[in-house]
């Protein structure tokens, strides 16, 4: 039997977490070493998988592992990987490595922190390779739930003024606090999970009592059933992808979360949602996807513009980045809604590009916050003088964010807008482009306000630039952004093997979709 590489990638972080359970609290160095080693092991595994999938040829699933878990219900442990899954394994591997390295500076209970973090990572890896819907859902919940504790314990608190028609509710809920943020995030995502579960059971029932996604893809669900199931998956998964108007957990959650958690959450977890919409929603429910494409795309466009405009008005550094994630995840959903090769390639590429870019952003923001204990941009200025490397990487992240060619962000946005124009609703490309323009305004304005100008204010004159661990993290993410932006085929060749297969199956089901 071949080496179970996928299970190896999934198990490494979990195994590390398990070992840590038996370590004493004081063994901080050991904990950090184990965590970083496990992340490296998974990353190497992911790189190997990517190479092999490219070499072994297009479009089919590789490295299948199949064990019956609950035969009476048809539940199996079934994992396998294709071009889509492999590219997201790579993303997760890179961000986990960068996040694990960046968190080595954490002093408050690192052992517990890493246990939750690595448990979450195992879940993420699992989602990207699971081919059994039940196991998919299981991994999904494993990935989502630790967030509550990670934010609730290691988070930071801000203050939000109560006003407007819902001031009474805000007073009651302590809006801005880390407990509030953790609770809101968990409740919204669990609400989404409930919808996913319902849709999943519906498919199980109508699809002949199997959770095998390969089998389910062959089932022709009635268009009427799909019309009901698709929105449940769209909203359910979409809630995690920052789908408007269920996105408001994201700014508060990301602002409250500690560095590595924001990196992983915005970098990878939000992709679980988008991946779910695409891989489960659209691929398994082709008619539903076509019936709802207009709504999905139109809301995605709202996401792009709404997120970008909201980001523009923020003065809290973390909120800017968090709202920008809402905007950029809209690009993923827009790509998905186009139902074109370019759009889907772009959506997958944007998951990667945005993942790396936002992880870079949050590691920089965390780095600044750790030194200043301040997130309020008007208090900052002239930081480039004392932290030039940070300024340089921040600018790089901004450039990817606004879609500068030469960074991964451009390739992704370009493909999505191209797909949007080729789709049934060409006009989607226009607000998409406007969103990119607005992004250019708010990210570069932020850069100027933080880094440009005559020297930092008195109290920040002592700030130091990134340390060794932080540099490793920054260079890893920054280089990835540029390398994949200059030569996108490293990833696109992989994604592009899977996309036409899924899309052909989707088009076989319904008429009226442009190729």
């Amino acid at each position, binding site marked *: 039997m071949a080496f179970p590489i996928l299970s190896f990638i999934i198990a490494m972080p979990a195994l590390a977490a398990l070992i840590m359970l038996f370590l004493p609290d004081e063994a901080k160095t050991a904990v950090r070493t184990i965590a970083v080693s496990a992340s490296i092991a998974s990353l190497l595994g992911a790189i190997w998988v990517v190479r092999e999938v490219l070499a072994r040829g297009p479009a089919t699933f590789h490295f299948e592992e199949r064990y019956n878990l609950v035969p009476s219900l048809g539940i199996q442990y079934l994992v396998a990987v294709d071009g889509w899954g492999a590219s997201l394994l790579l993303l997760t591997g890179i961000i986990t490595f960068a996040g694990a390295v960046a968190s080595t500076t954490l002093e408050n209970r690192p052992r517990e922190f890493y246990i939750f973090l690595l448990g979450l990572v195992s879940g993420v890896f699992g989602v990207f390779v699971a081919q059994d819907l039940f196991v998919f859902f299981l991994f999904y919940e494993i990935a989502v739930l630790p967030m509550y504790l990670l934010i609730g314990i290691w988070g930071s608190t801000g203050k939000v003024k109560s006003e407007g*028609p819902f001031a009474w509710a805000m007073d009651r809920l302590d809006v801005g606090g880390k407990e509030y943020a953790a609770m809101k995030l968990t409740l919204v995502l669990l609400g989404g999970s409930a919808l996913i579960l319902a849709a999943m059971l519906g498919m199980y029932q109508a699809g002949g009592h199997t959770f095998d996604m390969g089998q389910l893809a062959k089932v022709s669900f009635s268009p009427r059933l799909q019309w009901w199931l698709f929105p449940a998956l769209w909203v359910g998964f979409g809630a995690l992808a920052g789908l408007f108007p269920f996105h408001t957990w994201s700014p508060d959650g990301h602002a409250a979360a500690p560095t590595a958690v924001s990196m992983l959450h915005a970098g990878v977890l939000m992709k679980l949602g988008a991946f779910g919409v695409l891989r489960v929603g659209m691929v398994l429910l082709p008619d539903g996807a076509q019936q709802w494409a207009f709504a999905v795309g139109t809301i995605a466009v709202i996401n792009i513009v709404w997120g970008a405009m909201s980001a523009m008005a923020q003065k809290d550094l973390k909120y800017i980045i968090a709202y920008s994630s809402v905007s950029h995840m809209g690009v993923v959903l827009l790509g998905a809604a186009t139902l074109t090769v370019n759009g889907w390639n772009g959506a997958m590429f944007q998951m990667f590009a945005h993942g790396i870019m936002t992880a870079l952003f949050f590691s920089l923001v965390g780095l600044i916050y750790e030194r200043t204990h301040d997130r309020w941009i008007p208090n900052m200025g002239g930081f480039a003088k004392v932290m030039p490397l940070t300024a340089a990487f921040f600018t790089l992240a901004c450039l990817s964010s606004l879609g500068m*060619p030469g960074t991964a962000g451009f390739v992704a946005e370009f493909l999505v807008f191209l797909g949007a124009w080729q789709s049934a609703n060409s006009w989607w490309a226009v607000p998409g482009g406007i969103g990119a323009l607005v992004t250019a305004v708010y990210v570069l304005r932020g850069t100027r306000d933080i880094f440009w100008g005559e020297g930092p204010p008195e109290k920040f004159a002592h700030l130091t630039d990134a340390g060794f661990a932080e540099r490793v993290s920054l260079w890893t993410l920054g280089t990835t952004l540029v390398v994949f932006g200059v030569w996108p085929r490293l990833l696109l060749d992989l994604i592009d093997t899977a996309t036409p297969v899924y899309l052909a199956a989707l088009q076989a089901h319904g008429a009226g979709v442009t190729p």
Partner: protein
Amino acid sequence: MRTLDLALISVFAPLIIAVLLIIVAPLRRAGRAAAALSVGGAFASVFASVALTLARLADNRVPEIFETTWLPEAGKSAATIGLQIDGISAPMLAVVSIVAFCVQVFSLEYMADENDEDYGRYFTWHSLFLFSMQALVVAPNILQLFCAWELVGLCSYLLIGFYYKKPSAARAALKAFWVTKFADLGLLIGLIVQYAAVGTFGWDAETVAKLGALGVVPVAVAALYFLAVMGKSAQFPLHVWLPDAMEGPTPVSALLHAATMVAAGVYLIVRAYPIFQAAPQVMVAMSVIGGVTAVFAAIVAIGQNDIKRVLAYSTCSQLGYMVAALGAGSLFGGYFHLGTHAFFKAMLFLSAGSVIHAVHSNDLSHMGGLSKKMKWTTLTFSVGSLALAGFPGLSGFFSKDQILESLWEGTHRDPLFWIPFLACLATVGITAYYMSRVVFLAFFGKLGEHAHHAHEGGIAMRLPLLILLVPTVIGGLFGGQFLGLLALPEVEFHLTHVTPVGVVALVLAFGGIGLGYVLNMTPAGAGLASATAPVAAFIEYGAVDRFWLGAYNLLMMALSRVFAWLDRYVVDGMLNGIGAGALTAGEWLRRFQTGRATDYVYVVMLGVVGLTIWSQFAALVGGSR
């Protein structure tokens, strides 16, 4: 060497240096070493691109295209990346690299006061800038051109904001980036529309034929492309970023205004000319906008007292010329002027840099009588000004003549061309006036207050000026060879060819120079000149700037606050409302959980009574049916 090798050297030598300097921080921080590497890279680029151009002059039959897939689409190639070497790209490569090389050499001394770190950073961006522009020039399709186009914008942003500690520089850098980025949306959407319509990003005959058959599509595509050109090449009303871009170091302005940033826009038109030709309506609009820009910017230039701002508006105005000519169907005129202008404008800016370096001021009123202190600079600036004014024999004379001729021919086809024709003709006189004004004010007359200790720069500052002087003086003589590269059999070029339009232009040019002397060097004229200054100042920071500032404040700043408020207090508010509502409802319902047995019995009794009534009522209704 093979064409491919030369092209690769020309494009990638600067890139390799830039990447090296970005990654190896100690090398960059060493300052001098970084500068030496950067200049070396530029020199390699000059060598290779000149060799390419010479090879093209010898044999210009087939364009050589090297490309490979960049973006796959369902296993096929959606977009390629590569190099297109032909009669259009080769000479531009040479112009760009020569100007960039001269600017870098000049900067060696001009920027010597910077600390090592900033010095290294400066040259790093210069190398990146040169690469970006070269990649734009050799682009075999509009997508690669767009990518390089954005990188050119990025490098401009980085260099305009080089003095990042100065708030005004920060503002100028952002303004340049935002205005051009706004316009670039046109290019982005345009090329998407083109791809969706014909399935390629190319500009070859086959693509254009397919595009031309699609009715309104080529018009939309060309109009969208032209929007981006207006941003990049500073056409009215998107020119507002260019004068502010003076916040960068002066050699940067020389690069920006001559061969890179603003040249990119005009080059796009040249490169994608077949697409524009498929949209005659856009061509006419282009010509009109070019003409308006030419005369508008020239009028504004009259009143400027900052030597760099005069040159900035003059660039704006000259770009208007090029665009007007291209719109009138003269590929040769527009492109030729782009080339000659690159040399003499770079020389003018570097000469201005030399002056600023000597007197430590941009203000014309601080200068005066510099010809006594700085002979070389006086020579180069004066010759540059004459070339700009269209003095016979100098390079600008020939290219400007071509433009006016083409506009004159345009008036026979479409009366709308009278607008750009008259505008450009008037601009000849105005240009001659404002340039002679600068020359007289800065270099002649009595010694200015800052001019006493002025002296010529060292060899690094003089050499580039002299190199650029050569093409400025004799560049026009090579118009025939240049025309040969473009392969336009229907166009003719004569060195000695007297036309009515040419004579009128010449009269206007001499009139402008004479007026410049009278108004600025005689007591009688001084009063008149100062009387017109407020008019020019009014035009400058007038409605156009205020319009864009207003749009920014309203559409970006004010509207974003509305969005953010709605997001926090309505969208999220509803979620909070649900949460708090659930809590409140829970508290209210909790009161029913009293724990007293009697309460529960009451409720059970109530239920029994209710059910009984309901069943009776239901029986009644059912019975009556």
